[in-house]
């Protein structure tokens, strides 16, 4: 195959050798991703469909064969407590998405189109805010929320989660709106549109990829949030899924592993589907240069 055996590639390998090494490394990295990423999902899925007595029996099963297959584990979803957790998670996620998208659109527009002193520094400081981990802001927030009555409310959690999603979302929106030619808006003004109307009719529709990317980011953060929910929703019966399930596991009340797997699977599916169907938009949203 090869016309020349002289080493030419990196590490002094021939081009053919280099290709083989590359293919091999690709396989290895794929295997690692499958192992740490896909294996747990497989494990959750197969256990969720296996009868809970079997799972409790310390017998390792790798596939729910017909004799142990069941949908029964999912009845746990109708448990009022679990139902509350899921409902709270959904409300908090939607609330966070709406807040993040609205605020980041307006803030991003302001950064992209208006001139104000210290604009660049403002944006930089915004990004620094992203570097604080939830646990660092969580404890002061607990005290503030307690004194202004937001502690234990979904609204309080939505604000906290929006705040940590916001730096990225605003940055993304800022850079994305900057790629939309100013002439589009000016054309709308010439057509008689007010600044607000031009923003609504011309800028926002063109921001769809960035809106979806920001929404997905906010959703993933809110849906998977543990720290803030644990701190800001201290009552066990009004918390969200992640801390809720942990507390349920620690309770003396009997909750079989298979049930835990079923509810975990149910809560893993929405983000998975969301990401899958939005991936083309997501890529477009993240494709902004100089992000």
């Amino acid at each position, binding site marked *: 195959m090869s016309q020349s055996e002289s080493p030419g590639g990196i590490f002094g390998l021939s081009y053919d050798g280099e290709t083989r090494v590359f293919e091999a490394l690709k396989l290895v990295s794929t295997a690692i991703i499958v192992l740490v990423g896909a294996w747990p999902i497989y494990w959750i899925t197969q256990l969720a469909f296996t009868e809970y007595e079997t799972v409790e029996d310390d017998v390792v099963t790798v596939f729910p064969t017909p004799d142990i297959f069941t949908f029964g584990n999912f009845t746990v979803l109708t448990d009022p407590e679990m139902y509350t957790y899921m409902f709270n998670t959904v409300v908090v996620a939607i609330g966070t998405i709406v807040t993040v998208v609205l605020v980041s659109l307006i803030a991003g527009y302001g950064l992209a189109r208006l001139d104000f002193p210290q604009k660049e520094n403002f944006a930089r400081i915004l990004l620094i805010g992203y570097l604080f981990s939830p646990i660092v802001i969580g404890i002061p927030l607990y005290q503030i929320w307690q004194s202004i009555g937001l502690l234990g409310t979904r609204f309080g959690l939505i604000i906290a989660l929006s705040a940590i999603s916001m730096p990225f979302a605003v940055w993304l929106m800022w850079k994305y709106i900057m790629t939309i030619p100013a002439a589009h808006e000016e054309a709308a003004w*010439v*057509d008689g549109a007010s600044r607000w109307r031009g923003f609504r009719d011309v800028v926002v529709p063109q921001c769809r990829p960035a809106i979806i990317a920001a929404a997905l980011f906010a959703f993933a953060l809110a849906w998977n949030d543990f720290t803030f929910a644990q701190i800001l929703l201290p009552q066990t019966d009004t918390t969200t899924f992640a801390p809720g399930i942990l507390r349920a596991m620690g309770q003396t009340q009997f909750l079989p592993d298979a049930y835990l797997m079923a509810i975990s699977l149910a809560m893993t599916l929405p983000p998975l589907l969301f990401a899958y169907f939005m991936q083309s938009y997501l890529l477009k949203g993240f494709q902004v240069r100089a992000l």
Partner: protein
Amino acid sequence: MPDIEIRNLTKVYEESGNRIVAVDDVDLTIKDGEFVTLVGPSGCGKTTTLRCVAGLNKPTSGTITFGDRDVTQKPVQERNIALLFQDIALYPHMSVQENMAYGLKIAGFSREERMARVEEAAELLQITDQLQKMPADLSGGQQQRVALGRSLVRDPEIFLFDEPMSDLDAKLKAELRPVIEKVTDEIGCPTLYVTHDQEEAMTMSDRVAVINDGELAQVAPPKEVYDEPASQFVSQFIGQPSTQFFEGNVGAVNGTAELDVGGYEYNLARDGLEGWAGEDVRVGLRPQYIRVSDDPEAGIPATHLLDEPLGDATHSFFDTEFGEIVVVTDPDFDGDGKEYSLVFDDEYIQLFDDDSGVRIA
């Protein structure tokens, strides 16, 4: 429809302590139905002037009136203008029809009225079969037609163009020029057209306003700007290939004026040269009025450099004591790098002040 009156328009940009005068005391009146082109090199302030008229930029000083309406402080939305942008700026997420109807929608026209007006405009612009398409599916020329249609349906008081054809190729430009003229005639309002392309300026305008460094250099009908440029800048900027310049000296002025260029004497039957006797002047001549003589003794000595045959004429480049000179020669001319001389057709010689560049004669 009102006239546009621009009085003492000045626009100064302050950028990190630097004061940049983009437009310097510009006075210009565009009468109802008149097509005025603002032409100049890039960075000369022509687009800033237009944006001030449009209301997209605020002038530092000066006034802009449409008829008896002072619009200097009015925002763009209240000026009832149409503006065609350099990058066309159709709304990419709306169909052609929605693009054209958007202004009417904001103005609160009924759906039927909107569609009727869009149909009418589309017919005039021959884009009826494109109405349902998205802007991205159209060619550049078609997009600019849609942009014209978007302005046309609103029946604006003022029509402004900001280099609308600079991204199109030469053939499309030639095709769109009559369309633009048709549309502006149809509306019959004052039109200000900004371009750096002097061919567009010459072909479409009633009057051409040449602007340089933020100041108007000359405002006159195209033919006059070409034949009687007011300054060296105008002479050089308008016309392709551009005017060639030489150093000269005015000799005795006695009814006719003697002009010495590179040791060769021309007798000019011109007025206004009294007082210039003995002065150095700049001599301008359009390349088609320079003759190439085979006899190297007949005029300014010139070494042939290269030919650019265009089919109907040839542009020949010569090296002379005044630098590189372009001459329009016969289509069959073949210089072959030999020695020639350049002879002037003295009727067309333009004289300029050596320092200020102002036309003398």
